[in-house]
């Protein structure tokens, strides 16, 4: 039975997963929150870094554009200051400026009426292109950035055009032809590593470096800035993290953290759940232990009770044996005394009256012989009754005790010579007993009461009853001569008499008989008395019916 209950408990425990689930969910949500915060933080870092890098890029690009303009202006000023010069000088000067690696790969000058022009370049093509542009833009009054253009090879170019405010012969326009890759690549090749850089101009992507992360394209975590061009246009510079950077910064660590957090929560939940199961089992085992201990106590109590009962029975058996011995002894002893009296008195009679007739003394001797013989007979009858009371099979039935007491009192009074005796009979508790034997109890108690109140004034016998503690008690009291309480213990013994008076007949069997009958019914007897103040004899019977002993 215990096994089944343990299993039930454990089974219920395994169903009772709510705490583990709660902890897991909590742990996961905490991990996810931490992960989100970390990601946000990392993105902020990326964006901040991207902005810084974008500004740096814009600055260097703007500076390079400025320096290109400055180069062209320098050419213009030189032209003005020295009033022109030879074409060879100009060329040499222009070549020098191209070689200073300002990104310029071709330079061209053309006067306003296209009557004169000069062009130099790192190759023929840039010079020619510069010249074409100069032709197109010969009328401009402000510096202009032209482009982007794509040449036959697919390379992107732009041209910077600047009015040349020189003496009339040289007034016109100066144009620098610049390959965008030559301008931007050296500037941006090493800037902001990890970021993909792109520059847009008039819807054309004029520069890209590295592939941006696929995520970055869809998200806000990129930085943009722009470089203002001499005229209205701008170069739009955008920086986006590359996949490598995004993976390193946004994925690996936070994702590991998230996974670790979730795993930890699961572990914690598992441990706590296991702990709960174990402690639940421990609690149950403890309870089972306690129950077992209680059972053990019960068992011990039962044992003690059993031992007590064995002792009880043994004592009762010993009682019975010693009672039997006492009975045998009493019978032989007490029968011997009246029979001895008969013999002795008869012998006296013989001695005294061999040679003379019986006189009054002789007649008295005769009467005493008769008395002794009668006593022996009465004793035998009483003993027989006692023996019967001890052996008869009890026929237990509910008894109207009050009625029985009234009936038995009438008999006892008749035997006593219908004397003037008041009977006070209270309603008595109904008992379960053997009717014949209980009748004998009443008869003996009433006979005693009448016997020992003989000669008293206003003789009265009072019968009372009560129920308490599972037994019914009945007491018969008289207002006779009573007895000394010192001898109360002897009253119920066989052949015990407290009065030596010859005028009170009796064999000393009556109360012994009462005691034996009540004992056989599982009850007890008692006696109270005071000399010349009456006696009270009581007996009790168990409520659950008599137990045959």
């Amino acid at each position: 039975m215990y096994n089944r209950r343990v299993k039930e408990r454990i089974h219920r425990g395994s169903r009772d997963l709510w705490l583990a689930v709660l902890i897991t969910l909590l742990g996961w949500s905490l991990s996810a929150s931490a992960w989100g915060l970390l990601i946000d933080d990392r993105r902020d870092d990326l964006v901040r870094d991207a902005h810084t890098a974008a500004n740096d890029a814009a600055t260097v690009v703007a500076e390079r554009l400025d320096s290109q303009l400055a180069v062209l202006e320098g050419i213009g000023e030189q032209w003005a200051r020295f009033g022109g010069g030879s074409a060879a000088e100009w060329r040499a000067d222009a070549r020098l400026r191209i070689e200073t690696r300002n990104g310029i790969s071709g330079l061209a000058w053309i006067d306003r009426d296209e009557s004169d022009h000069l062009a130099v370049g790192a190759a023929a093509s840039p010079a020619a292109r510069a010249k074409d542009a100069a032709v197109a833009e010969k009328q401009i009054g402000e510096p202009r950035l032209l482009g982007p253009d794509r040449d036959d090879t697919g390379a992107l170019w732009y041209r910077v055009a600047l009015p040349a405010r020189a003496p009339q012969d040289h007034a016109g326009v100066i144009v620098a032809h610049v390959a965008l890759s030559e301008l931007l690549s050296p500037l941006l090749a090493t800037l902001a590593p990890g970021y993909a850089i792109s520059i847009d101009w008039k819807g054309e992507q004029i520069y890209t470096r590295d592939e941006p992360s696929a995520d970055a394209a869809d998200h806000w975590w990129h930085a943009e800035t722009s470089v203002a061009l001499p005229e209205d246009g701008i170069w739009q510079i955008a920086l986006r993290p590359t996949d490598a950077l995004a993976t390193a910064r946004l994925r690996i660590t936070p994702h590991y953290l998230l996974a670790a957090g979730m795993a930890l929560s699961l572990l914690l939940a598992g441990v706590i759940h296991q702990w709960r199961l174990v402690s639940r089992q421990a609690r149950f085992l403890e309870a089972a232990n306690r129950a077992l201990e209680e059972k053990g106590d019960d068992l011990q109590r039962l044992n003690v009770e059993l031992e007590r009962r064995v002792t009880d029975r043994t004592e009762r058996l010993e009682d019975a044996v010693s009672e039997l011995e006492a009975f045998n002894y009493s019978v032989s002893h007490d029968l011997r005394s009246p029979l001895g009296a008969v013999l002795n008195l008869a012998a006296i009679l013989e001695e005294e009256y061999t040679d003379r007739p019986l006189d009054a003394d002789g007649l008295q001797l005769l009467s005493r012989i008769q008395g002794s013989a009668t006593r022996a007979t009465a004793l035998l009858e009483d003993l027989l009754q006692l023996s019967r009371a001890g052996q008869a099979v009890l026929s237990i039935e509910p008894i109207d005790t009050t009625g029985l007491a009234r009936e038995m009192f009438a008999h006892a009074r008749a035997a006593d010579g219908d004397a003037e005796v008041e009977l006070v009979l209270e309603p008595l508790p109904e008992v379960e007993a053997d009717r014949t034997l209980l009748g004998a109890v009443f008869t003996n108690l009433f006979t005693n009461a009448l016997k020992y109140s003989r000669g008293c004034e206003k003789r009265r016998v009072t019968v009372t009853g009560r129920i308490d503690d599972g037994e019914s008690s009945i007491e018969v009291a008289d207002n006779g001569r009573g007895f000394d309480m010192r001898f109360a213990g002897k009253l119920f013994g066989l052949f015990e008499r407290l009065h030596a008076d010859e005028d009170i007949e009796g064999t000393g069997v009556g109360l012994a008989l009462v005691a034996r009958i009540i004992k056989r019914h599982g009850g007890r007897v008692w006696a109270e008395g005071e000399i010349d103040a009456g006696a009270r004899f009581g007996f009790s019977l168990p409520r659950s019916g008599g137990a045959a002993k």
Partner: protein
Amino acid sequence: MSGTRNILLVEDDRNERDVALRALDRAGLGATVSIACDGQEALEALGLEMPEPSPGRPPQPRVIFLDLKMPRVDGWEVLERIRQAPETACIPVVVLSSSDREADVRRSYELGANSFVLKHFDARGPGTYIAEAARYWLDLNEPPPARRPT
């Protein structure tokens, strides 16, 4: 030899008493016989129990014939009390009983009886054996010296 030849007979049965008295009387022992009808009366007669004897102690008997089975106080209790009290401790006590049960005889001696006589029908005459016992204790036996008053 002390001058008093008195016997205390403790016996509750009237017939037994009469038989014993008659036998003692007929034996011509010249003894006076006091009667106690039960143990209680015996204790009173010996001054061992209320009511107090007045005045002075009654003369102690030379021998006590004591029945065992009596109402109220039985013979053994009387014997025990006799032996406990200094005034009566040395008085010879002859137990007269109709019981020859070993336990009764032993108990009597243990409590200090000087003799144990079984009541029986004496074919020579009722109670003759009692008179014989009395003669022994009165005539043949040296009584204990009288207690000196302290």
